[in-house]
């Protein structure tokens, strides 16, 4: 009898515990965070970082670093626009006046933002033109490469698409010089051409053969520098210098370990990312100044890779994107031109493009 009563008490206690447990379960469901985003500190002179996010994870973001008071802001677009997502795989940004144009590749959009606080102004839907990759502006026009193998011309005031033209397979890098647009057709590793489009007529004037896998291009005056990443099996890439007027190849320079993104410095100096770190190149003489100005392992001691590079001419500083393991939030490492570290600040997942608002 006593045993039965004990059992009954046990069951009652157990039932009460279960009730509390189920009630707490529903309580937990209702406990979603409702934290308001922090107010955006308006930007004057700043480093702008576009973070790609995880592939297909819809978590691209913008980080900023004020050059005056060193304030770091993360997830700026999300916080400035009522927790609205920037999208998936943001790859590039270009600043034109007070506006910024952000290419969000997988979300098929170019977002137009106010550069002072990153509030959204408008967006251009690229669903019919293909995913936008990299962009430039010139006068009243913007130009963007898309993964539908198109070059798309748009109006930077009305935010409307003006024209399109087919270029090479999977174009990526883009630059303008001497009234011509230079497009690096990477072909996702199998391309070998740079397409040249005349701005005024928006017609192709030449396809220039370069080393395998051209991915990035910058211009300085009449010189156009194309980086071919090369084969992923031997890693041998190349820097090709093209004269923008004659469209002839002036010189080439072999760079090992799959060179990729690059930043333009003073006097046609170039800072090129490769598998070892930052290669410092004299673009004027097409020679290597320093094979490894900054070792990748100094920037990123997890996967030893650098994902983005920007050069601040005024301060003579390099800003290098450290993606860590491409899964967690990354950071930006600041180096001087001698290759010494000056500091770091937090960024989002996979920092991909670094520009300067001055």
């Amino acid at each position, binding site marked *: 009898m006593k045993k039965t009563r004990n*059992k*009954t008490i046990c*069951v009652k206690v*157990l039932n009460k515990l*279960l009730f509390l*447990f*189920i009630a707490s*379960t*529903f309580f*937990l*469901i209702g406990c*979603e*965070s409702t934290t308001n985003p922090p107010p955006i500190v308006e930007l004057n002179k700043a480093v702008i970082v576009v973070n790609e996010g*995880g*592939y*297909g*994870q*819809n*978590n691209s*973001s913008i980080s900023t670093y004020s050059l005056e008071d060193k304030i770091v802001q993360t*997830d700026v677009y*999300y916080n400035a626009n009522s927790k609205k*997502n*920037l*999208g*998936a*795989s943001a790859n590039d940004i270009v600043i034109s006046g007070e506006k910024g144009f952000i290419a*969000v590749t*997988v*979300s*098929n*959009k170019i977002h137009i933002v106010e550069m002072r606080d990153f509030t959204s102004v408008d967006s251009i*839907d690229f*669903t019919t033109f293909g995913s936008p990759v990299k962009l430039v502006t010139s006068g009243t026009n913007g130009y963007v490469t898309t993964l539908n193998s198109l070059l798309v011309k748009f109006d930077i005031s009305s935010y409307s698409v003006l024209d399109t033209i087919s270029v090479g397979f999977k174009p990526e890098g883009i630059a303008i010089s001497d009234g011509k647009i230079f497009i690096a057709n990477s072909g*996702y*590793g*199998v391309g070998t051409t740079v397409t040249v489009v005349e701005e005024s007529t928006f017609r192709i004037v030449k396809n220039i053969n370069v080393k395998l896998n051209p991915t990035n291009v910058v211009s300085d005056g009449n010189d156009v520098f194309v980086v071919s990443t090369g084969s*992923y*099996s031997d890693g041998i890439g190349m820097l090709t210098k093209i004269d923008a007027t004659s469209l002839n190849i002036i010189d080439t320079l072999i760079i090992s370990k799959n060179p*990729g993104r690059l930043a333009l410095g003073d006097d046609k100096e170039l800072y090129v990312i490769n598998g070892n770190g930052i290669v410092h190149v004299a673009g004027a003489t097409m020679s290597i100044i320093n094979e490894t100005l900054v070792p990748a392992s100094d920037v990123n*001691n*997890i996967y030893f*890779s650098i*994902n983005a590079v920007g050069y601040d001419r005024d301060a003579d500083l390099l800003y290098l994107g*450290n*993606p*860590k*393991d*491409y*899964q*967690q*939030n990354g*950071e930006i490492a600041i180096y001087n031109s001698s290759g010494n570290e000056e500091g770091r600040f937090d960024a989002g*997942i*996979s920092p991909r493009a670094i520009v300067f608002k001055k």
Partner: protein
Amino acid sequence: MSSENTLILFNEARVNDLRTGSFDFSTLELYAIDKIEYVKNNSADNISAGGVLKITSGNLDNQNSVNIGGMVNSNLTQKYFGSISYSKNNFSFGSNYIRSYSPNEYNYIFEGEKLKRKNAQYSKTFVNADVKWSSTDFVLKFYTHYSHLSSGLPGFVVTNNTASSKALNLTNSWLSIANVNYSISNNLVFVSTLSYHNQFLEMEDPQNQLLIDRNSQSSTFNDLAFSSKLTYKFRKLNILLGYNISDSNVDSLTTYISGIFSSTTGKRTEQNIYTSANCLIPSKYLEELNISAGINYQLINEDIYNKLEHNYLSYKIGLSFTPLFAKDTEILTSFSSNYRHPTFNEKYYSGFFGNSGLKGEEYKSLNIGINSKFNILGKGEIEITYFTIWGNNRIIWAPTILAIQIPRNISKIKSDGIELRFEQSLFHSLFNWEILYTYTNARNISAVSEDDKTYNKQIIYTPLHRVNLNGSLNISDFRFSANSSFVGKRYFTPDNTERNSLAPYFLLDLSASYQFNISTIENIFTINIYNILDEEYFIIQSYPMPLKTISINYQARL
């Protein structure tokens, strides 16, 4: 623990796929399955860190019947099936035919907008047959199935891109299994299984979204496996000795997966020799004391790009007892050491990143549990288990600079938690209910450097809390059931930032069925409502799950 760690036995044959390490359940049909049993931790004859899933198909109960039926649901899914089961004397036979197809454009909510899922359509045909001859000491069984599945690959859903994939997948799968079960004497039983699994996969990618340099790619997988085991029982001692070998190959492996590189055929031969024993030991102080132990020697020979040989010795020990003062209570503890070799997809996914050096996962796990039966208002059972797992070289898929995900090792993880299960059958089975709760604290305990913010953070997609609460009410010919589940917050990045977390969700499914006879025909009519609360939820980031779905089922049995 990921699904690759779970050993899957289909009619005793090991069917874990060489490519994925798991089994493609989409090629199966639940209707054709007689029994599914999950053995947590390690079964008597297999050592597996993720437990063992045993699937049995083929007129298990020696029935004589003909079944036909169909199902339609609110996503315009249609399914029709027919089966026949025949049994006489020592012989039995069974066969099922199932046809289903659906546009599967289910509703979901993304960024506040109600949308329809794109490219999720499928068309499937499944047919199986089995024959069995059995006597008191001998069973000979043959089973075979063929499955044809054509489906869209829906892809991820992100801002302004809700149709990220237009790719199509075709899978033709053929699985045949022969079993022999012979009782040599009252104490000695011999079991042997021979299986052959062939799978043809083809992907169509008209827009080169997944395959970079072509529009379609196919791959064929073959696996021939043989296993034998001998069980000896002597009084309160059971001894088992077993051996299995599987020879697998898959062609166009890297091409199919990475979409970049040329075809290569991969081969792997895996052999396991294992023995285990358990013994009931009489004790003055305990009602029952059971001690068990086992070892498994695994030898793997691989040939893809280069030859590799790997061996590992797994082991397990266990102890369970029932105290004299609580004869319905059992206290259990076990400790095991396990290894999982990387799958072909993991190891050779992408040659240029050199992940052929990927290491296999190693686990050591400890379980301590108590299980108690009671009878108050009805039969019930409560089970509480504490578990802790130390993992080494856990494999995760990480994004890279080229937006391709490749597998990486996390050197060390530690997972511990509690599982609670309570079930009760009340009023002579009029009402049955159960609750399952799992608390899992699974953390990365290796930091590559001080900059690594993933140290001591919860492993991605692993919630701290998970609850299932289920109940069923049986009144005459009516049956009502409710199944609910709560899954707590999960992170999808390893540094556990709030921005990259998935909200908790609560799902409630309801079901009502009515059984009635017309002449000699038994009819069952069922209505199911899944996610009746229209919960917006993600299991994986960027893959939104369906809102409410209603299905109507009818089955007639002759």
